[in-house]
């Protein structure tokens, strides 16, 4: 039986465990039908031209989760940021772990989706938002929807400004057969409210599991959301991240994606504008080596006038690693005075590293400012000599140039301890012990 058939068959067993009366169940069933019709994407799909899921879906995975993973704080501590106060929503093998988490219902909800689905007081909000921004034609998103059960649920009411960031941490133990995890996160930030979120998916033991995650983000009027994704998983783990963002007028959403590890990582990051004067920022820093593969697939749909979007993706690729950037800017006819900017710069350190960069601009309005640029090059040899002539050894010189190259993405990280953590991840990755003040 193919894994796709297993996913379809297992749905009956899944239905035994969940509340069939929930308003989301009809979405699950419809989504499963769509997945059944469409199947997994293949390289024939234009959006998947440079990334193949073939080897991943040929394997078998456990769909039922490990209910009693024996995980303690010491096992996971190093993957979270601990030197600041924060909310934490921790999942281990897909199951919420209340002992490792720090959630709240005090003036806002920072908790889990399973609770929001089962309690009647959340029913109205869930009905209003659930699956409202997820495109029907993306089969991996449909697959996630069909198995919706657990994930982070964040609701920030009107004018609430939490001081502490939220860390969403998904761990996978790899203790039994590789797991297929499908977390579903919903984040709703009401008018004039704000939130900062750090999301991380981490395997604790080398295994070939796969996470197909979906996050729906709703930014209401004049809200601000700062979202950081840290992808630094073990070299055998796979991640498909689907993030869909719905922005109302005057809202500002920024997503930073740091891709430093994992076997295959695919980021589908879509922004939809539903009002005027919106700002969207998409920044990415990818540093890979070995046989790692990261694919950034972005969409910004400018559907209203006077909005801005800013994309800046940088990549540094060593050994045989592969990077893909497929960035689409779609400007609807009514979206006059749009200002859309997109940039993708890559450095190939080794001969066998590869980058496919594909900017796509579809513009139907006539009074807009749209620009895009893409470069693929090598480290500047003269710059390397310049640094070496000042006594900086080759490895450190490469690291310094890499930092300089990445600086534009790093400098907009607004949480100092997160910035420090990312700096140390980069130093470690580049094999140097330099302290950088950026």
């Amino acid at each position: 039986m193919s894994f796709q058939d297993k996913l379809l068959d297992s749905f009956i067993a899944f239905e035994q465990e969940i509340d069939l009366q929930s308003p989301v169940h009809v979405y699950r069933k419809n989504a499963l039908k769509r997945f059944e019709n469409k199947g997994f994407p293949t390289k024939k799909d234009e959006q998947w031209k440079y990334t193949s899921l073939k080897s991943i879906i040929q394997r078998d995975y456990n769909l039922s989760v490990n209910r009693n993973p024996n995980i303690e704080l010491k096992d996971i501590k190093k993957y979270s940021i601990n030197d600041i106060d924060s909310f934490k929503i921790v999942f281990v093998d897909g199951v919420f772990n209340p002992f490792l988490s720090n959630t709240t219902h005090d003036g806002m909800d920072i908790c889990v989706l399973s609770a929001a689905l089962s309690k009647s007081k959340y029913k109205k909000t869930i009905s209003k938002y659930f699956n409202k921004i997820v495109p029907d034609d993306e089969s991996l998103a449909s697959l996630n929807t069909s198995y919706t059960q657990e994930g982070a649920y964040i609701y920030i009411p009107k004018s609430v400004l939490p001081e502490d960031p939220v860390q969403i941490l998904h761990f996978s133990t790899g203790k039994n057969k590789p797991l297929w995890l499908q977390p579903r996160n919903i984040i709703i930030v009401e008018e004039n409210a704000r939130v900062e979120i750090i999301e991380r998916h981490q395997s604790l033991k080398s295994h070939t599991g796969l996470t197909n995650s979906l996050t729906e983000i709703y930014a209401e009027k004049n809200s601000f959301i700062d979202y950081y994704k840290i992808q630094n998983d073990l070299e055998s783990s796979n991640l498909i991240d689907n993030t869909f963002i719905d922005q109302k007028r005057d809202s500002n959403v920024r997503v930073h994606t740091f891709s430093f590890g994992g076997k295959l990582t695919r980021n589908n990051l879509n922004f939809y504008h539903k009002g005027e004067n919106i700002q969207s920022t998409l920044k990415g820093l990818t540093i890979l080596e070995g046989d790692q593969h990261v694919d950034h697939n972005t969409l910004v749909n400018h559907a209203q006038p006077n909005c801005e979007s800013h994309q800046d993706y940088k990549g540094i690729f060593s050994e045989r690693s592969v990077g893909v950037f497929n960035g689409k800017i779609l400007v609807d006819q009514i979206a006059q005075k749009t200002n859309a900017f997109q940039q993708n710069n890559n450095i190939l350190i080794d001969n066998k590293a590869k980058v496919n960069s594909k900017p796509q601009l579809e513009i139907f309005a006539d009074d807009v400012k749209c620009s895009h640029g893409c470069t693929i090059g090598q480290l500047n040899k003269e710059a390397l000599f310049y640094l070496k002539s000042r006594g900086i050894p080759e490895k450190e010189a490469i690291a310094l140039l890499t930092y300089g190259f990445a600086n534009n993405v790093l400098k907009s990280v607004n949480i100092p301890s997160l910035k420090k953590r990312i700096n140390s991840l980069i130093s470690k990755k580049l094999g140097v012990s330099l302290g950088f003040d950026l």
Partner: protein
Amino acid sequence: MLEIDNLHCKIDDKSILKGINLKIKKGEIHAIMGPNGSGKSTLANVISGHEDYQVTKGSIYFDDKEINDLSADERAHEGVFMSFQYPVEIPGVTVTNFIKTAINETRKSKGLDDMSSSEMLKKIREKANLLDMDSNFLSRSLNEGFSGGEKKRNEIFQMAMMEPKLAVLDETDSGLDIDALKIVANGVMKCSNDENAVLVITHYQRLLDYIVPDKVHVIMDGKVVKSGNKDLAKKIEVVGYDWLKKSK
């Protein structure tokens, strides 16, 4: 301090230096002049350890040690410094960050701990003052958007920070107006003492009014064709290089 013995070198199979001999003792200032394409900048790059230049014959001795096989960073650790004719722009790396890394890596090579932040800051301020540099300049990206004068001043600032035994100044005067030239030359002279040496590469005599050389060498076609005192530079300023071609 520096002894160059019958140095031949090529780049991309093109011979450029064809037997250079040069001896610089500590405390001395030497100047190298010569027409375009004579090999002046190549000599500076070869001394600094640029990998594109291949030494085919001869030796470079620094403090009696042959340094032909040392990489650029190792030569810098030994005390060789080159002020670049065209300093490279490095976006995203601030002047401060860069100089801190350079100094601490050099200290590391000698088994010393990092310089303390307060000491570093003090030194940076002192040397920036010496070159009349604005403090906001230190937090700018290295050479990015710098004017020609700022770039050269920044080179000498780095020299002052690194305190090398030998400073090779490759056309440090090009692109400088007379005021900037004075500041830069003054910076060099303040760093110059009995324990270090300076090798100035220039087209023009005017720099040598401020950095007064003990010896002047003229390079043509990859060889030193004439050596003398500072009067040689003055003569060249007036009559050019043709007379040297004839006497060759």
